[in-house]
């Protein structure tokens, strides 16, 4: 590739950050100092486009932003055109291409936090830190909904650090790092603080949360860990797929596709290598179940990924964790390193001749990268824009190869299936929705958090556990892409919510009481989709803007023509958008208009 660079120079710090990731440059042709001898021959570094996002992260983590010199150096090292790297860097909200302070506060202004007074916090932060954009910025859902309103401070430096605030008041955020009154630097409540049921009998997916040390591999194994992988080796790949098929497990990320069929289709693909991608880019507003699993039981995910890879014939798996989950990243990295050192990951796992390893990739602030094909583009070092389907990932996925992509919760469900058998698993739940489900309850409730219930429980039963505070007005099921419901007897199953004109989605149950301004919530939903649209297709890129504009007008004055306009734009987004983001961007607004009569 013959690339032209603009020869902006990186600072020593930026160069060191990139070299720490990629190693020192081999020749002057890839960014090192040029010697006389090197000018006598041309050398070409191996293109490594997929390391673009990690390299951008490296500079952003060290300096806080990415300068022209740093971008130029990254491009030389990886043989990436600078214009394209600029396009990638400008895609992600956690990366900055303009100078900014090392410490930046990301203040959640999304649904669950809105329902818990985020607006007041925002005003207080603005009064203390000045206008948004430099030392603080409003953020989409941080996945800390049980501690709403929440904030995350990210501080760049040689050892970058993060600090979680929740519930945040607004006044404590300027206190220098390490002396914030919340405890020592980086202290945050343990993962089980998000699980009101922690330690109770009968939990399946949450059984270790708060009971077993998330850092201890021995503790994990002592509580049944790696029994499922041994069982998988006994069954063989086809046997594992048969069990998963028979269990009736369907994807928990929102689309509810049968997992066994996805695995089977991938395993049968003649093209090689096959890849496994674990989608841990949990960004649906109000969702934090995957975070709790990754923080509270990281080995379970590592084991489940190993089983999935064994069944589908993958030698390499990518674990794509959203950038706003620093603790989950640390715990998973520790779990992967320990598993590797004990022969449970890497070459010849458990002496069975099966080799598999996981590479952890961090997202950088883009909801759309949780879309199953956008995640491939993001890993490959391109803008996280969804691809058009067909071809489907099982045929052409990551790097154009057959890929199985599963959500965290879906994968950990494989463990009980193999431990107790498909029939025992399918005995729980309903015919159409087997097993148990994690629900992320937030908003106006006394006990927000993750609840595990067998499929078939009603919304009322779930809320009895979480105890709504105040007078209940509506429940948003499925997050920003979901729908409002008022009938508490709707069964929480895929088929039950579908029949009620709603969706389980990722398991979001956001409770709104009568003090919450619904118009405000709808505006926030519209703003969220406008911000998070990748901009690729017209219905979503312009439609989400027009939807937000119409809702602004409607919140001041109800006009039939604006309601008609919303319906027409909404229908077009649903019918003609490329991916699920645009197709669902109007769901919640539609249900609020039709069921709650917001603009009557």
């Amino acid at each position, binding site marked *: 590739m013959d690339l*032209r660079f603009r020869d902006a120079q990186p600072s020593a710090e930026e160069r060191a950050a990139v070299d720490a990731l990629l190693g020192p440059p081999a020749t002057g042709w890839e960014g090192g100092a040029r010697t006389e001898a090197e000018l006598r021959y041309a050398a070409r570094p191996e293109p490594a486009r997929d390391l673009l996002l990690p390299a951008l992260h490296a500079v952003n983590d060290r300096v806080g932003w990415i300068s022209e010199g740093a971008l130029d150096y990254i491009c030389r090292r990886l043989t990436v055109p600078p214009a394209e790297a600029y396009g990638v860097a400008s895609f992600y909200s956690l990366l900055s291409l303009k100078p900014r302070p090392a410490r930046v506060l990301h203040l959640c202004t999304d649904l669950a936090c809105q329902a818990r007074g985020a607006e007041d916090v925002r005003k207080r932060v603005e009064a203390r830190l000045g206008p948004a954009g430099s030392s603080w910025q409003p953020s989409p859902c941080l996945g800390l909904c049980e501690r709403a309103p929440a904030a995350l401070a990210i501080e760049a430096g040689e050892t970058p650090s993060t600090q979680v605030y929740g519930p945040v008041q607004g006044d404590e955020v300027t206190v220098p790092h390490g002396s914030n009154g919340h405890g020592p630097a980086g202290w945050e409540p343990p993962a089980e603080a998000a699980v009101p049921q922690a330690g109770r009998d009968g939990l399946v997916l949450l059984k270790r949360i708060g009971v077993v040390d998330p850092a201890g591999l021995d503790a994990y194994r002592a509580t049944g860990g790696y029994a499922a992988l041994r069982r998988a080796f006994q069954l063989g790949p086809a046997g594992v797929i048969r069990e998963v098929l028979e269990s009736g497990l369907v994807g928990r990320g929102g689309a509810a596709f049968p997992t066994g069929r996805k695995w089977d289709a991938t395993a049968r693909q003649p093209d090689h290598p096959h890849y496994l991608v674990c989608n841990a880019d949990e960004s649906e507003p109000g969702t934090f179940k995957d975070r709790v699993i990754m923080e509270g039981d990281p080995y379970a995910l590592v084991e489940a990924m190993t089983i999935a890879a064994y069944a589908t014939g993958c030698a390499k798996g990518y674990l794509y964790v959203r950038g706003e989950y620093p603790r989950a990243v640390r715990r998973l990295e520790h779990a992967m390193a320990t598993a590797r050192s004990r022969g449970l990951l890497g070459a010849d796992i458990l002496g069975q001749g099966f080799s598999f390893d996981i590479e952890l990739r961090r997202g950088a602030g883009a909801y759309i990268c949780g879309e199953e094909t956008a995640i491939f583009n993001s890993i490959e070092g391109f803008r996280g824009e969804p691809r058009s389907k067909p071809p489907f990932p099982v045929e052409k996925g990551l790097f154009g190869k057959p890929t199985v992509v599963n959500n965290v919760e879906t994968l950990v469900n494989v463990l009980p299936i193999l431990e107790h058998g498909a029939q025992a698993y399918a005995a729980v739940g309903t015919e159409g929705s087997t097993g148990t489900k994690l629900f992320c309850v937030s908003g106006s409730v006394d006990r927000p958090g993750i609840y595990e219930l067998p499929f078939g429980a009603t919304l009322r039963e779930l809320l009895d556990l979480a105890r709504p505070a105040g007078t209940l007005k509506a429940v948003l099921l499925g997050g920003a892409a979901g729908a409002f419901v008022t009938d508490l007897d709707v069964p929480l199953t895929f088929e039950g919510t579908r029949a009620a004109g709603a969706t389980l989605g990722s398991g979001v149950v956001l409770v709104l009481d009568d003090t919450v301004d619904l118009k405000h919530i709808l505006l926030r939903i519209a703003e969220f989709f406008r911000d998070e649209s990748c901009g690729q297709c017209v219905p979503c890129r312009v439609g989400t803007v*027009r939807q937000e504009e119409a809702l602004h007008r409607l919140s001041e004055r109800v006009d039939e023509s604006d309601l008609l306009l919303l319906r027409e*734009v909404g229908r077009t987004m649903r019918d003609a958008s490329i991916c699920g983001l645009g197709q669902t961007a109007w769901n919640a607004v539609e249900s609020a208009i039709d069921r709650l009569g917001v603009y009557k």
Partner: protein
Amino acid sequence: MIPLQPPRRLVDVQIDGETVRVPEGSTILDACQAAGKDVPTLCYGDTLTPKNACRVCVVEVEGSRTLAPACSRKVEAGMTVGTDTERARHSRKVVLELLGSSVDLSTTPRAAGWIEEYGAEPGRFGDDAATVEQPAKVDNELYVRDYSKCIMCYKCVDACGDQWQNSFAIAVAGRGFDSHISTEFDAPLTDSACVYCGNCVEVCPTGALSFKSEFDMRAAGTWDESRQTQTTTICSYCGVGCNLTLHVQDNKIVKVSSPHDNPVTKGNLCVKGRFGYGYV
């Protein structure tokens, strides 16, 4: 010389109730064209891989939850396609409204006709509707980038990048409604990797990219395509033998394009063929 393709199986598809037989691997758009249907397209380029970003070509495929882009969806045997159903027409109408309300379509061929045909009203979003209006970027003597006319079809990026020119001077930057075509750090073209082949201008469907000569004449009100003649000849610079189509107005060359069906260059030229006509 056009290389012979291996023989392809023919498949039957139903287009608006009419059976059409097309080679396997054809797109719905190919089948529509074979059936004589006029499906509007904007981001589709005859020399580029379909990006299906504009969604103006959507059609209804039986059994599909959403509408399908005709330009990229491959036909399957037995497929039933409706190109003119209420659902497809509705989406096309709203897509034209969304584009018409945010982008200047005044130099987009056929846009005005489609807006009329589908009954689109771009003005319905009000005077405060966000647009991409911005001053044109004039940073070199050869071509102008007027991004207030850009519909983000990605064709210029694809032509500049790995599909044709391999210069990679421009890419899509930003996200959502703020996404735009840009060089790195929005540097002027003269500082970028641009080689001024003009192949991006060749594929631009809206006139957002235009030759400086055309841009200046339009500004002066002297651009008049009815007074132009087009003459296809062969470039005299090197031995490749690219076809040039000279657009001549008042006995002066006002722009140079290249036939897309030329088997050697597929409408692509270099800076000399595209802009080096000053000596004539």
